[in-house]
């Protein structure tokens, strides 16, 4: 078992890149006081728009840009409802997920580009970006900048920030756009690099797993990295166990990531100190 574990590490680190980027993005947004349940739909949309863009332009960079654009469109929609209309964030997020699930299937079928080739990604930059560069930059932005301070105030007590004359909405929009950038990258990487194109519901719950890891990590970056590492390893073990043919039924192995995530959520025992204003609808 131990050798399986060790051999699974490289796979884990690469395969969890979309998840990690999503965790990082959601962390920023939740620190600002918003729960984006629609992150699943955002990633799925990005996966689709990335593939369409790459197929249409035959450029993988354009593909990544397309993914980010798709995520940004979803973020704009989510922000319109959750921030501007002050709607319930859970209901909005659920609607976004349904919209993306149905919409991506619909659009991808209409666009009819699945016969075209997807240009391969010829760089290794994404791995250190996700695991090293983004955490460092986010850490500085969130904890060592005036913007980050104000954003965290939005997540704890938005009235306090509003009382100083600053706009809570603007800060939350900024956080949402940062998330769109990261989740757009995540979705694009998923469909362009880790898979060979778009498939219906290909995100398979990664968005929800990302939400769980944010909670597990107690809304801190170190916890996020740790949680993703643990999960990624468990998920990679799934493939390793399959390959090693240890007699565990294939379908039950497919369920493993979700069971592991449930256990992760169990590990958050007692009082979880979420940002106090998280998910609270502004009056």
């Amino acid at each position, binding site marked *: 078992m131990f050798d399986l574990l060790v051999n699974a590490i490289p796979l884990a680190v690469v395969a969890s890149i979309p998840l990690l980027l999503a965790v990082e993005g959601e962390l920023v947004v939740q620190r600002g006081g918003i729960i984006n349940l629609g992150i699943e739909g955002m990633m799925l949309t990005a996966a689709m728009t990335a593939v369409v863009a790459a197929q249409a332009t035959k450029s993988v960079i354009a593909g990544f840009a397309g993914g980010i654009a798709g995520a940004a469109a979803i973020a704009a929609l989510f922000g319109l409802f959750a921030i501007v209309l002050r709607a319930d964030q859970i209901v909005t997020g659920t609607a976004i997920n349904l*919209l993306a699930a149905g919409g991506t299937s619909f659009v991808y079928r209409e666009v009819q580009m699945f016969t075209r080739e997807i240009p391969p990604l010829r760089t290794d930059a994404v791995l250190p970006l996700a695991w090293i560069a983004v955490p460092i930059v986010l850490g500085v932005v969130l904890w060592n900048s005036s913007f980050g301070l104000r954003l965290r105030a939005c997540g704890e007590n938005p009235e306090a920030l509003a009382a100083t004359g600053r706009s809570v909405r603007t800060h939350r929009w900024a956080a949402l756009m940062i998330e769109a950038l990261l989740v757009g990258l995540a979705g694009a990487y998923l469909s362009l690099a880790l898979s060979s194109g778009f498939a219906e519901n290909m995100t398979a719950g990664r968005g929800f797993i990302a939400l769980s890891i944010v909670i597990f990590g107690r809304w801190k970056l170190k916890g996020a990295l740790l949680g993703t590492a643990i999960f990624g390893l468990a998920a990679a073990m799934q493939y390793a166990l399959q390959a090693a043919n240890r007699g565990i039924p294939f379908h039950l192995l497919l369920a493993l990531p*979700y069971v592991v995530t449930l256990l992760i959520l169990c590990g958050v025992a007692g009082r979880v100190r979420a940002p106090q204003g998280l998910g609270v609808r502004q009056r």
Partner: protein
Amino acid sequence: MRRVLVAVIAAVAAVLLLAFSGALFGHSPIALLAILIRGSIGSRFALEGTLLKSVPLLLTGLSVVIAFRAGVWNIGGEGQFIVGALAALAAARFGVIASLAAAILAGAAWASIASLMRLWRNAPEVLTTILLNFTAIHLLGWCVNGPLRERAAQYPQTDLAAAALPVVGGVHAGTLIALAASVFAWWMLYRTVEGLRLRATGLNPNAARWAGIPVRSQIVRAMAISGGAAGLAGGIELLGVTHRLFERFAAGYGYSGIAVALLAQLHPLATIASAAFFGALVTGAGELQRTADISAGVATFGQAVVILVLIVFEHVRSSR
């Protein structure tokens, strides 16, 4: 009256938006609308299909109504549906009643995993119920490919269930059960003190606690009832329609329940009309896929549009 108007506008808006989305890709919106209508209510066959689809939607919709009314985010209808069907299959040899009872209990138990995790470990049920959905889907996959696979071992599906719902006047008895459940849910919510307390817990859990309502156990009870309804939906779908289990058995009924519940403005009796609408939408979308090669995912898209339109209306109303 105003609430009915809002619901109707939301439904119509969704359908229109669907048709015009098709226009973006070169289809004629009028033609799409025609296919939708014809495919859902345009013939006896279509109507039967709509009715068949509306029954599970009614029950999963009720499941969400009860949960949301109690302030609990039960997004796990999909998984509870599947688990209910599995239990119904296992208990089918004991007859229809035992089978459906097993379905209800199984759905309640599956939902209770999430509510107990919330109680003991503060795990947000909005996430745990979704994760349990994925788990149930793969559990089903294992069952139909493995231990429960049909004897012929040709397709990934089970053998026929040992029991089946009787057909009454052209529709399977599950239809009547679902309608009865709707009335029962209304009675429970509005004519019993348990329902009063459940609604109070959902509206203001703090005040409910101060008024002496045991909020924590109230939530567990509400989740169990909610899960039971979704489980029942799965059992009825098995015993009345498909008669066997296979992958993709749930086909989104659980998630659709959310749109059904919201369009019905969380009222148990209005859920009947709402389920009928979404049943028609799903059936019509199936026809769209057959005739116009448009992904049946537009039905899910339509659900989302309905929800979003409803949100806009709520905003307009509350900002007056």
